[in-house]
């Protein structure tokens, strides 16, 4: 059963939103991902992921202030919802459980144990 579903990129985005805490909006998220993961992210990919996350109810958004650079366009800040936190926890747990279940020998094929 797919109770929670987070795609790989979505997971990265939502984690980044968490990292940025109150400062998560389009450009900041993009920069954070690009610097931390050293991969380039297009606006399109990012906003699509944000729209999806919002539609799934994992994040909520609110209109923020605007700056001169943005020519008066407001920023849209994102926050993780309680449901989103559950989804993240679930994802982490399943990953951890999978990690645990991997036999040691996989990482240590030479058999030092």
């Amino acid at each position, binding site marked *: 059963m797919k109770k929670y579903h987070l795609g790989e990129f979505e997971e990265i985005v939502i984690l980044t939103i968490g990292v940025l805490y109150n400062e998560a909006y389009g450009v900041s998220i993009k920069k954070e991902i690009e610097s931390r993961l050293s991969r380039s992210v297009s606006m399109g990919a990012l906003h699509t992921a944000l729209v999806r996350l919002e539609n799934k109810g994992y994040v909520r958004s609110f209109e923020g202030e605007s700056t001169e650079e943005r*020519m008066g366009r407001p920023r849209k800040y994102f926050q993780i919802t309680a449901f989103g936190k559950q989804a993240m926890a679930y994802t982490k747990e399943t990953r951890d459980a999978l990690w645990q279940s991997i036999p040691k020998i996989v990482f240590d094929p030479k058999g030092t144990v």
Partner: protein
Amino acid sequence: MKHSPPKFFLRFFRWYCHPKLVDFIEGDLLEEYQERVRESGKRKADRKFIMEVLLLFRPGIIRPIKGYKNVNITDMYLSYFKLAWRVLLNHKGYSFINVSGLALGMTVALLIGLWIYDELSFNKYHKNYEDIAHVWGGRTNPETMNIEGLYALQYPVAEVLRNNFPQYFTHVSMAWWIGDYVLSTEDKKFNKIGLIVEEGFLDMLSLNMLKGSYQSLNDPHSVVLSASTAETIFGDEDPINQTLRINNRVEVKVTGVYEDIPHNSSFSEIQVFFPWPVLATFRGGMEGSETDWDNQFVNVYVQLQPNASMEAANAAIHDLYAKNVPADFYATMEKYQPFVQLIPMRTWHLYSEFENGKPAGGRITYVWLFSIVGVFVLLLACINFINLSTARSEKRAREVGVRKTMGSLKGQLITQFLSESFMTVLLAFALAVLLLVVLQTPFNALADKDIALPFDKLVFWGIALAFMLMTGFMAGLYPAFYLSSFQPVKVLKGVLRIGRFAALPRKVLVVVQFTVSVVLILGTLIVYQQIQHARHRPIGYDRQSLITVELSDPNYQGEEEVIRTELFNTGVVSAVATSDGPLTAIWNITGGYSWEGKDPNVEASFVTCNVTPDFGKTVGWEIVAGRDFSRDFATDTTDAIIINEAAVKYMGLEDPIGQKLTDVDEFGRPKWTKTIIGVVKDIIMASPYEPVGQTIYYFNDYASGLLHIKINPEVSASVALPIIEATLEKIVPSALFDYTFVDEEYGRKFSQEVRIGTLSGIFAMLAIFISCLGLFGLASFVAEQRTKEIGIRKVVGASVFNLWKLLSKDFVWLVLIACGMAIPIAYYFLSGWLQQYEYRTDISWWLWGITCLAALFITLLTVSYQTLKAASINPVQSLRSE
């Protein structure tokens, strides 16, 4: 300094991006762009920007194609309906007129729809509906070159079809004619309608056998009953293997029971099926039928092979006579070019009339007629709705103005007005369904149907929904577009002077309404006039207190003389006679006569009837020349015939009395010769709309089959009937006393026309009622609108009568125009309808006059209530009102 990104791509982005997202993403793009310009220069930043815009072009970001509304649609619709409901409540009078008018119109349309559905589904109960056919024998009349024909066929036809065309037919089955039979158990007698059929007939009709099987009629002494018949005869007992006597002549065993055939089948009236061999016991002279190509007297039904086509089968059997009739006999038939054809089941009911050998018309005319009437009555109700909504538009113009100023779009206003219209339609439909439930029984009685309410059928609700949508759109579209197109500036300034022609569409619609109503009224009147015309036609005998008893029991044979004297002795009877044909139908037509001066090419066929000498006295026919039969003349017994006036004309006789009539066989050899002793006035036996056929009455003391009794005029029928019954019972105890009053039987000839007349009368009344409702609403609106004008006119000295004249004039004009238009339309259709009757009424001009006067009168009556009310208001009040 700020740099701006490539304009074209920015615009492109704004064009495709979802409106909800456009501001934020654009902000992000711009913020990033400015940073890039700072970091790596404008050219690189531009290139990056273009890349980003192109990469943003993906689902999730692109705006939906259908356009995006940022409002909560359900809330808006709820608001529309709330408003619609309030508008309805606010104008109770108008709403009542609208809803009740529409409900009436819908009820009529629904009833007519059910009726048409029933007509179109006729015979579909039978699973082999598409494959069953009735064989019809046609021939060309050498005088007129017209193709005439009958369903009655020669006995060997069935045999030929069965043996020579197995590739076309799965079943070929002969059947006798549907008739009355007396079924009796030890102690009870029942009169039931039955049909004698060959094996395979039940199978062909795909009857639902509750007991027994399709083989149940294979035993020559078996009988198959309908479920309801089995119940009336045997009650709760198991009918299987019970013994019944039929007409007191033959004993049979019940071997099967079938589910009652529904009313919309050609075989619905049949309650009993008998096996074919039974026929021989009822009807003498069956010996040699197998090879008798002369006598046309049986029905032949066929069922096609699943892969055979009707056309192919028809073509194959067309010249059956030429190929199968022995050559010497065919020579006598050849000049008629006889042929057979298949009449498929689907045409039996709706196309029952033949024209030149092809099924041409019949009830389908009424199906069309009523469809048109239904559509029109519904149209009238819709017109009311349209007229009242547009007329009231001035009142709502301000509302529209305010709404538009507040930012309402035209489309939204249209939706609002349409939702009002749907609300009305919905209410009307609920009311119509209620009315339908109430009217079901009377309607079924009126239309002679057994139509069930189709509320359990999904199709009905589907159609009802489509129907409501259609009516809602029809009624609401025009007001919706008209009202929503007002310009707020003009409307709010109060300069909604709609011009001279603004009311024109409304007037045209009123004219349409009244044209339809007047046509319907005229139609009804003409139908009634035609019925009256035919009713008042002299029928040639006295049908008062005359009863006919069918002597089907064999024990009557030879008792006629006793019955006559015994009945006479009771004193309640003034005359008694027997004959072999009834007064209200033609049973025998015989050809092959000759007389002095006969044109040898004329095929002389006459209606014939054997009667006892008292027949004339009993039925009270009128002798116009010569004398009645009499026992005083010894020669009458063997030599005398009486003919009717039509026969005199047909034979072309100057002085018929004393002329001789000779019967010749098919080879022209005389069989006998009789003398005409009298001429009687034409007696209407068949249709009262047709000319009376040339008829010969034979003196025959042993005429049997039907007993005619003239009840003594001084004794009431209720006293006389039990005495007559007791007398007959005493003489023939086995027989069931089953009588008909001749005047009732005769009255039945009009039932079809009376039904049409009543139905069209009701529709006409509804039509005029709906039209008047609309007119009433319009008049009240006009009176309201002109309150001030009326006040001023009164102040300057106009009388109430003046004002009444002023206000009513407009409406009277409209109705007069409608009458002017209705007359040619009605004349066209009605003269067409009357063409089908030989004996028809003229369409008289005073009828037009009366109808138009009546329409005017009704109009004035409707309008006057409002106009007088408006005219009699104290001007102080009306001028103060604001």
